[in-house]
């Protein structure tokens, strides 16, 4: 593992986006993960998505738990604040941060151990509260950082590198998220950037709890024959149910598709999610249909990927709590403190 700063000089030909930044401006420290680790591809997809959407990097808060996956926020968006919290507890920290300032973009990065094992309670509750966030689980079916133990998403019957067979039922976070009321649910594959980048972009434009499960092979501990989270296995069993284009509100919708094969979903901010349907008759705005699709694929040993469900009219936690538009961290004593005169009246009522 090498650790050194990248040269800051930008190639003049690097294109700038609408906020005047190059793709390089969205990068972070040099990754210390294993060469070929799926997580690094996800970081690249996050960088691409943020650059393409003209996200201001410093207006993003990156939060994670503990694990190889949770280390990655250091490797993108260097000008954003990051928080490597405690194992499995990113969702609560993100929820609190989100309450303090509703204006930032909250990006939670977690692992399958982090979110499906130790932190499943926080995963569940942050989703059902509708925290406005992009929640990405980099799912490799193992604990990478502690060297290859099974996580709760490992498929029943899959073998570890040491030859141990997993006898426990897997937890499918996508199915769980659907049941919990997540308003944007997608699955991607770290090896398919073309599909993944738009899924992340759609999540960024979404208001509410947006969850993306990204299958992300661990080359060190879970990329062998017998693993169901290896590059080989996922390439062979991946069925993309749709292809997503995200059209920001200010762009014109110009891409043409054959009639009948496209679903368009307008999000609260005016952006449009345009889905090219690959699976016949599948409606991504129908939660029950999404669950059925996921279960049907599961039973065939296949992985359904794409945007599985979206509810563009969803409400988020701030709406549920009816909080002011002004971020809490900008409110001062003038509006927060009732003052001495009010206290005088309170005292009078207590005699």
């Amino acid at each position, binding site marked *: 593992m090498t650790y050194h700063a990248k040269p800051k000089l930008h190639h003049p030909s690097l294109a700038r986006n609408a906020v005047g930044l190059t793709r390089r401006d969205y990068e972070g420290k040099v990754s210390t993960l294993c060469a070929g680790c799926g997580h690094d591809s996800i970081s690249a997809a996050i960088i691409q998505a943020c650059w393409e959407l003209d996200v201001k990097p410093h207006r993003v808060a990156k939060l994670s738990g503990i694990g190889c996956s949770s280390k990655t926020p250091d490797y993108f968006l260097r000008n954003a*604040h990051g928080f490597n919290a405690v194992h499995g507890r990113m969702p609560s920290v993100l929820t609190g941060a989100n309450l303090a300032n509703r204006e930032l973009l909250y990006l939670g990065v977690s692992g399958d151990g982090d979110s499906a094992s130790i932190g499943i309670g926080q995963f569940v509750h942050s989703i059902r509260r509708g925290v406005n966030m992009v929640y990405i689980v980099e799912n490799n079916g193992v604990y990478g950082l502690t060297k290859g133990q099974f996580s709760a998403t490992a498929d029943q019957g899959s073998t570890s590198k040491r030859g141990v067979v997993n006898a426990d039922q897997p937890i499918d976070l996508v199915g769980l998220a659907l049941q919990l009321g997540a308003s944007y649910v997608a699955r991607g594959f770290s090896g398919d950037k073309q599909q993944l980048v738009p899924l992340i972009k759609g999540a960024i434009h979404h208001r509410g709890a947006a969850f993306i499960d990204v299958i992300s092979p661990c080359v060190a501990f879970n990329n062998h024959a017998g693993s169901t989270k290896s590059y080989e296995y996922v390439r062979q069993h991946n069925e993309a149910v749709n292809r997503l284009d995200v059209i920001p509100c200010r762009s014109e919708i110009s891409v043409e598709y054959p009639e009948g094969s496209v679903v368009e979903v307008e999000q609260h901010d005016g952006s449009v999610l345009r889905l090219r349907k690959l699976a016949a008759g599948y409606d991504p705005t129908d939660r029950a249909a999404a669950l059925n699709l996921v279960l049907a694929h599961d039973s065939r040993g296949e992985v359904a990927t794409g945007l599985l469900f979206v509810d563009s009219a969803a409400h988020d936690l701030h709406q549920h*709590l009816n909080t002011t538009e002004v971020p809490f961290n900008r409110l001062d004593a003038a509006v927060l403190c009732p003052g001495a005169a009010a206290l005088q009246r309170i*005292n009078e009522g207590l005699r």
Partner: protein
Amino acid sequence: MNSPRDFGPEPSARPVAPLAAVNDFVVKFANVNGSGSASANELFAKSILRMGVPVSPRNIFPSNIQGLPTWYEVRVSEQGWLGRRGGVDLLVQMNPQTWEQDLAEIEPGGYLFYDSSRPIPLSSFRDDIGIIGMPITEICNRTYSDSRQRQLFKNIIYVGALAAMLGIEPAVIEKLFGEQYRGKEKLLDANVKALHLGYDWAKNQGAPCGLRVQRADRVGDRIFLEGNAAAALGCVYGGATVCAWYPITPSSSVAEAFQKYCQKYRVDPDSKKNRYAIVQAEDEIASIGMVVGAGWNGARAFTATSGPGVSLMTEFIGLAYFAEIPVTIIDVQRGGPSTGMPTRTQQADVLACAYASHGDTKHVLLFPEDPAECFEFAATALDLADRLQTPVFLMTDLDIGMNQRLCAPLAWDDSRRYDRGKVMTALELEAGTDFRRYHDVDGDGIPYRTYPGTHPKRGGFFTRGTTRDSGANYSEKGPDYIYNVQRLLKKFDTARGLVPQPLLRESAEKTRTGVLYYGSTSPAMVEAIEELEASGTLLDAMRLRAFPFPESVRQFVLSHDQVFVVEQNRDAQLRSLLVNELSLDPARLIPILHYDGTPITARFIVDAIGEQRRGPNVVPLKEHAA
């Protein structure tokens, strides 16, 4: 109808002289949980207060919701003693289930007041107490047809009878009703009527009782409220906008009171939107996680919990300490573990909080003595957490938190500004001010931080535990670690001067004996000191109000031969903290420990100190000189 004496022995047969006292006695109510007695009992206590006589009531309740015994004890003390006294002078027995145990507590010569509607065998009474039976159920059944009314007005009827027996002016109670039922004339009338039913009955019967309430002027401008409500109000005044909590007795009413006050004071009058967020989390780990996230992002946040919750929070507390994130935790202490004594009081989380978490950690603790300090210290805790960028604990307990206590009126200075600590602004960053997140620029151990989203190019940093250098870059190098944790120690030293300082009460004459105490021990201690002084035992007393201990605490201990440390836990936890943190000789510090779950009493302290004290009371100065 039964006469009051139908089922009790003749008063003339009493072998002990009946108690007689004016404005100095203890009344205990034995009730059934869920019978509506709580508000009537509070009415009783408040009516005595309104007559200018200090009272201190205490709820004694097991961990049940309905149908089981609950008690309410009111100490009436013109002298103003607010600690629990111990013993009962008048028992109001409304719960046959606990008849025997309650009767045993009555002081010889004391009184029993009970519902005589159903006959109770003669053998169930004591012959050394006065007995007043009132057919309360019978009167209610005769007067009311509605079963709910029959139940509720029982309570008001006994308050009326007690008023007659003790000399409480009914007009005072009527005024309290008027305040309570403003605009609800029907309810008001019904309550006044019930009150007089009881009052007139007792007047006609001439119920004999030697205890009297007499108008005095000893309450002044003091107020009467619960510590939990006061702490919640302190959080409102102190600018907390995020409250994340998980229900646990005895702390739940903090969050509930915060909600109540926020609904009143924190709704934007124009948009009708809330300037607060309260999340009932899925557990205490999530509660503290949310507080950490909000604190990291620049909002003032707190959680309220009790011992079991603190245990769950400890991993996060350690992270917040090392990552230097403001966090305010209100710990309303109770007895024991999760199946311990949730409805009993103790000061038994002192060490668990002072050293919460793994690694080398220590935390700021504040020890309020009453609701007024709960209010003040809650706001102080929010300031200190921001100033020191660290977790701060407000260490209250059930005794302060869940009982109404007479205390100084709450005070707020409108010129007071929140101390948001060292936060670098966009302007400063733009001007090129050096920003290194964990660098000690000012020599006080406190670095600068930035809120997320402040500046496009500068001030961003990656928050993690300790694997970092002073610029927040990943580092596992020894010297970087040492620089960091040494700076944290320096910061803790800085805290000594910022926390509420101890208060010293010197004895009238010079003495070599001292006493240290803190928190809810205060009222009993103050009373004990006077009592001890009256019997010739002179004590210098220091009330500790925070940890880390300032230098004055060490000086106090060193300038006395013998220092009692009075606490409400088994293991002398604060004493351990003193020995450990100030390198004091343990032999100088004599533990006085009360830990059965009931609030400590002056009687207990006086006896315990009396037993332990060595040497003469006073060391006259001239003898020393010789």
